[in-house]
């Protein structure tokens, strides 16, 4: 399984997206598109909500989800949950594990980036990602995703989306620092009575070894279209290779049996 850069002497960086601060302005989407030269994609409002995108894709590396929940009881009003989704830059990144060309790589900052001059569009990372982040761009046959603004971060600048976020819902920095800040924030919200506040992806013990870009959510992850217990399936690979070897042996045995059970040739 892939490991984040630990020996490079650089601290691992990432995002803490605090959705309790998101106002749904989509400045992150715009800034990302502008800085990274991400192509336009068709405009159309999904499900009559203010979400005009179809989730993350090759042409949208930040995506603001609008969850508009109807009142549960008479005294409670409409609840809007807004959340800016992004590539999670997993500690154990399934996309990186399965990439057969080495186009996907782990940077010295601990982020996961596609080298567009190497990617041959095999598409294996697309169903491998437990978050559905990666997909192929129709026009050029390659996969594209958030690079955590590798050109900016490797020069010591913060990514375009974090820079543009007017409420600091998107925070960039050293992962260790962000984790401490997030724990404090969740505590603060709970003290104020927001009992549903929880962190998502901050736990290095989860199925992907923790996210490099983690979140503070106000409802279950699946409400935002996120998987509740994501897993990099590569962790089951030894068993799967074992099954393939056993099946290969069974195939050889089957062929041998077919030859041995009949009459001998002349």
């Amino acid at each position, binding site marked *: 399984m892939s490991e984040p850069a630990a020996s490079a002497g650089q601290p691992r960086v990432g995002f803490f997206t605090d959705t309790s601060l998101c106002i749904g302005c989509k400045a992150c989407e715009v800034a990302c598109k502008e800085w990274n030269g991400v192509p336009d994609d068709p405009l159309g409002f999904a*499900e009559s909500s203010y*979400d005009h995108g179809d989730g993350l894709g090759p042409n949208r590396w930040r995506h603001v989800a609008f*969850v*508009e*929940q*109807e*009142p*549960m009881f008479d005294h409670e009003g409409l609840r809007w949950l807004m959340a800016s989704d992004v590539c999670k830059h997993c500690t154990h990144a*399934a996309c990186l594990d*399965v*990439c*057969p*060309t*080495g186009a996907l790589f782990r940077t010295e900052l601990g982020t996961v980036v596609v080298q567009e001059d*190497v*990617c*041959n*569009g*095999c*598409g*294996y990372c*697309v*169903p491998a*990602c437990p978050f*559905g982040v990666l*997909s192929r761009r129709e026009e*050029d*046959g*390659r996969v594209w995703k958030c690079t955590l603004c590798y050109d900016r971060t490797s020069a010591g600048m913060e990514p375009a989306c974090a820079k543009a976020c007017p409420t600091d819902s998107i925070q960039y920095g050293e992962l260790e620092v962000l984790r401490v800040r997030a724990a404090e924030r969740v505590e603060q919200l709970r003290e104020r009575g927001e009992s549903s506040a929880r962190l998502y992806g901050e736990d290095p013990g989860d199925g992907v070894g923790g996210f490099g870009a983690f979140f503070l959510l106000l409802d*279950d992850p*699946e*409400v935002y*279209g996120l*998987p*509740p*217990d*994501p897993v990099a*399936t*590569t962790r089951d*690979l030894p068993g*799967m*290779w074992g*099954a*393939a070897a*056993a*099946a*290969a*042996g*069974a*195939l050889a045995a*089957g062929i*041998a*049996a*077919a*030859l041995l*059970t*009949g*009459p001998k*040739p*002349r």
Partner: protein
Amino acid sequence: MNTGPEPGSGPLQDRRSRSYYGRPVIAAPVWTWEVPVYLFAGGLAGASAGLAFASEVGGHDVLARRAWGVAGVAITACPPLLVSDLGRPERFLNMMRVFKVTSPMSVGSWLLAAAGTATGAAAASRLLAPRRGGSLASALERIGSPAAPAAAVLGMPLATYTGVLLANTAVPVWHEARRELPFLFAAGAAASAGAAATAITPAAHAGPARRLALGAAIAEMAIDRAMRRRLGPLAATYESGPPARWHRAAVTLLTAGAATLAASGRRAGPASARAGRLRNPRRAAAPGGRPLAVAGAALTLGGALATRFAVFRAGFASAEDPAQTVAPQRARAAAA
């Protein structure tokens, strides 16, 4: 299983709704028809190489030559199928930049390169050398002696690694079938290799191929049942839409194929005993036996191909249903 709101219910979500407007959580594969056809062709090639080499060792030379022919043709179809499925086909050689055991596609690319070379050399040696004289024939024969066992050995994992290729994804109906998929594909490979050889081999010499096809077709249906039982609620993807149509076709074709092969075997049985003493075994086959064998082989081949398409299409249905992703993860979290 969809937990999303009814279409046309507007922007408001019930607070109990456990999905984001019923949208998928994971991304459906971008692979097209070339991939299931490759799953079939790679299995056919690998198992045919195994059948060919084993037939050689067992002294079934007539069958061995036919099986080498099938292996050579099938393996030749594989690289073009995989290259044309790439988003950037001109960059197919980038597959050879690295070798990664964590990537079944990387392992498979190297395996296909090695198995393809060995199978091509073995098939050329066995089919061309006897027809040519001189130095070329002797060179081909020299190549054949190491290539034939290598092709047989490499052919076995070539037929089964594709189960890992699909299982090592976040697609629930593939990943949760990770114990069965390699066996399902092994059985499909054996059924198709046996069937293809049965179709083109004189009945008197086709006995082992027919037995292989018959046994493997039955095994394939049994493994498919075991897989769907393990999948539990996820197996619903095999019960509606395109995967259900492919799955019904697969079961029908495999059942009919196995029955027809069994019937042709009963006819060929006494004939093959007679043929052992006759000079031309082709003429010795019982009347009706050979068309029956060809029909049974075609049905079995179709069944093996349809199984690959059923599994492939089920992956798309599974990826597109958010409940298939969320429900097992919730259950896992609750159990922990």
